[in-house]
């Protein structure tokens, strides 16, 4: 059990979050985008676990569990859609999705 300065933990989470965000912003391949999303979710999960440890209660880990559930649910639907996309365009390019605009 180590006493980590909270600020450092938070900064780490923020950095991880931003890295994930960069991934969402720059990648065109949807698989990569999804992976970047996972990074972001994990960054937030880290914050909760950190909080749980800091305050010594279970709420943080409960929230982590919820995030985990969400990630699972989301990825299931997302992958189904990705497969659809690939079938349709033979590509995972997110930029192909631009029929609707204006």
């Amino acid at each position, binding site marked *: 059990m180590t006493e980590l300065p909270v600020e450092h933990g938070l900064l780490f989470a923020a950095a991880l979050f931003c890295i994930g965000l960069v991934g*969402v912003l720059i990648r065109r391949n*949807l698989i990569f985008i999804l992976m970047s999303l996972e990074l972001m979710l994990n960054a937030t999960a880290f914050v909760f676990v950190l909080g749980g440890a800091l305050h010594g209660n279970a709420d943080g880990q409960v929230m982590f569990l919820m995030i985990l559930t969400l990630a699972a649910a989301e990825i299931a639907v997302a992958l189904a*859609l990705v497969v659809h996309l690939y079938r349709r365009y033979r590509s995972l390019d997110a930029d192909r999705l631009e029929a609707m605009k204006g």
Partner: protein
Amino acid sequence: MIGAAELRALLPLMLVALTAIGTLLLAGFRRDARLAALGYQGGLLLTLLTLPWALPEQPLEVTPLLRIDGFFGYFAALFVLVAMAVGLMMQRQVRSKTSGERVEESYVLLAICLLGALVLAGAQHFAALFVGLELISVASFALVAYPCGGRPSTDIRQRNSLEAGLKYLVLSSVASGFLLFGIGCLYLDSGSLAFAPLPPSTSLALPGLALLLVGVAFKLALVPFHFWSPDIYQGAPTPVAALVATLSKGALFAVMLRYLWFGALQELETLVPAVALLASLSMLGGNLLALRQRDIKRLLAYSSIAHLGYLLLVLLAIGHAGVAIEAGAFYVLAYSLTTLGAFALIGCVCEAGDEPDYRLEAFAGLIWRAPLLGASLMLILLSLAGIPLTVGFIGKFYIVAAGVDAGLWWLLAVLVAGSAIGLYYYLRIILIMLAPQSEPSGIGGGRWLVYGLTLLLVLLGVYPLPVLQWLPVL
């Protein structure tokens, strides 16, 4: 922990969950759209009917997560009604399409959406907020992309719904990330996930609230987080678009109302400029974007951006104006009712042919083709524009009242400017509708839903007293 009283208070949620599962089981038992619809509507009706009984006399905390009180009751009733209307729209779609899309699952998903909304209506805890939100989100991802899963409907519909589903999913997840990060900060700050007044000294609350605001603003589609909404409205099946426009936004707004009401007010002071900025940008941006939009669904999306911008005034007024909560609650009702009407009408008029036609021109001469539908459209648009004798006016009246009471003069000025722009495109549709009829085109089914909603819209516009009397219970 959970005793008889709590169980009774939880009855609406349980019924809705049961409806979801029951409908699923029905579908598994026999794939019949009508049967599924029946199960769904029956379950919801039961929920609605038992709701008064289920509501406790005094506000009741059911686990740390939920607080079942008048506020919950009001929004629960509203959301159940909305879900029923969306279900009806869904049903109509089946009847008009003989292609036999599988819609049974969609009722399950709808019910889950509703469950999420009910959780949000009662949430007094961030975990409940999060789960409720994600219930709505995940279910609506699938619903938005729904046509992909059916038997081949038209190509464009499939393409658009796929695109909409993916965009919604990715962007919504990003926003969820922000939201979670924000909640995490707040949790880190206070060590509790319950809605409570923030301790005044801490500084982590500020970034927490700011990030929370980002997430919320995305879900409410406020400028500049609004980009997803027109695409989703356009791509999703019309009932689902209606759902996204009303239920998910309304539920999130309800929970924010409760959160702020529960005491994050003093922290909000530092957020006021940010919220005011979002509100102004939304009011102006939404209306400007809608100005010359040619697709009716996108236009509605933009117009709801503006409406949510108006609604944000309530959040700002909440600490200062006594009417703010009432205003917010009523506006959600007015907005939902009107938007549902609009989407029902779109379903009725635009999707009559084989290929849906969402251009504004689809409405040309509607009033001469189908006078009642035309009149309904006119009333719906007037309600959106906030003209008296429609529920939209009472809503706008309330908003302005809250703004005046709280002295938000600048925002009111922006509201006036935005409304003025808004008048242009609402009237534009009316004028198109009044144009001499171009070519005769059919009218789809489901017009009774439109009439019903319009009637309600006028009735509540003329005599909103029943609802108004309920509001102070909040």
